[in-house]
């Protein structure tokens, strides 16, 4: 059973891994420009597994920032993972073991989280491990290639691959929106607010990771107050997602 779940995770992880390969390729180029060797950049990707967080880290390393500053910056750019981890803690069966939780904690990120939360029932840790097992090498390999061989992929291919991850996000939120009018409303409001923050100068100055946290807290709170979830509704929407 666990083995089957692991294999299913591997399959779900293939497009994630391919998307990572493309994104981390550009991440590798950033690392190189920041003065990191291919080994250092790949090590960072293996240990951190966070796009915005790593991007911020590389830029700060290039500026020789202090360790405290680095830690604060990481905590802020990655704060959305606190919310995701809270949500995952509820998605895991209460029988999930400590080592399983600690392993999952190594790679909570947008894409794998999206797939995990789309599970109709409780989350099987082995399904998660399967996704990690294929996604993490993709992320590390892309970084390595980006730092070591630079522009090996034609620009048109990099450009095309760069929307793959967003396609996966859409595959989570759109089918759920089709099933529930409330989620549809939440998604539309979220996108509109995100767009507004991008174009209004005062907000545009805020780092995108921070904007994501801000909007998530405000909109999800508002939705929770206006449309508290009843158990039946929740199950229905999740089965659709």
């Amino acid at each position, binding site marked *: 059973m666990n083995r089957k779940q692991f294999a299913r995770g591997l399959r779900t992880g293939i497009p994630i891994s391919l998307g990572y390969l493309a994104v981390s390729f550009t991440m590798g180029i950033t690392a190189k420009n920041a003065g*990191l060797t291919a080994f*250092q950049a790949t090590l960072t990707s293996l240990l951190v597994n966070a796009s915005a967080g790593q991007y911020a880290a590389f830029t700060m390393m290039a500026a020789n920032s202090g360790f405290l500053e*680095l830690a604060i910056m*990481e905590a802020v750019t990655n704060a959305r993972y606190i*919310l995701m*981890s809270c949500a995952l803690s509820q998605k895991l069966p209460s029988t999930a073991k400590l080592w399983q939780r600690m392993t999952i904690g190594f*790679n909570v990120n947008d894409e794998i989280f999206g797939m995990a939360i789309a599970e109709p029932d409780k989350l099987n840790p082995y399904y998660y491990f399967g996704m990690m097992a294929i996604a993490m090498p993709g992320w590390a390999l892309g970084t390595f290639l980006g730092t070591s061989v630079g522009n090996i992929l034609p620009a048109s291919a990099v450009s*095309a691959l760069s929307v793959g991850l967003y396609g996966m996000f*859409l595959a989570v939120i*759109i089918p759920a929106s089709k099933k529930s009018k409330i989620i549809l409303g939440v998604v539309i409001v979220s996108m509109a607010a995100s767009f507004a923050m991008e174009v209004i100068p005062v907000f545009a100055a805020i780092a995108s990771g921070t904007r994501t946290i801000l909007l998530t807290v405000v909109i999800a709170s508002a939705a929770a107050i206006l449309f508290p979830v009843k158990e039946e509704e929740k199950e229905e929407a999740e089965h659709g997602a």
Partner: protein
Amino acid sequence: MEHNTYIYLAIAVVALTTYLVRVLPLTLIRKEIKNPFIRSFLYYVPYVTLAVMTFPAIIYATDSIWSGIAALVVGVLVAWFSGNLFMVALSACAVVFIVEMLIL
């Protein structure tokens, strides 16, 4: 401090901070949360977060804003009618490739 030493220490700081952010909620929250507000809040979180991260970022991700918009439209349509993860990601990538071949 030697530059390489600085880089390795910096990587350690970044990795540790990121790990703590992720692992603490996962290990500290063991029981099912009963509070209806928090339950509802956590239920909406992924949809808001993913929507916010997708738009408008998707239209700026590619070499041309038009291919980005095309990816968004096609991605939404395929997700609405098929819902298959791989299909959605693949068709979004394919449409970018095609649109850029036509206009760039």
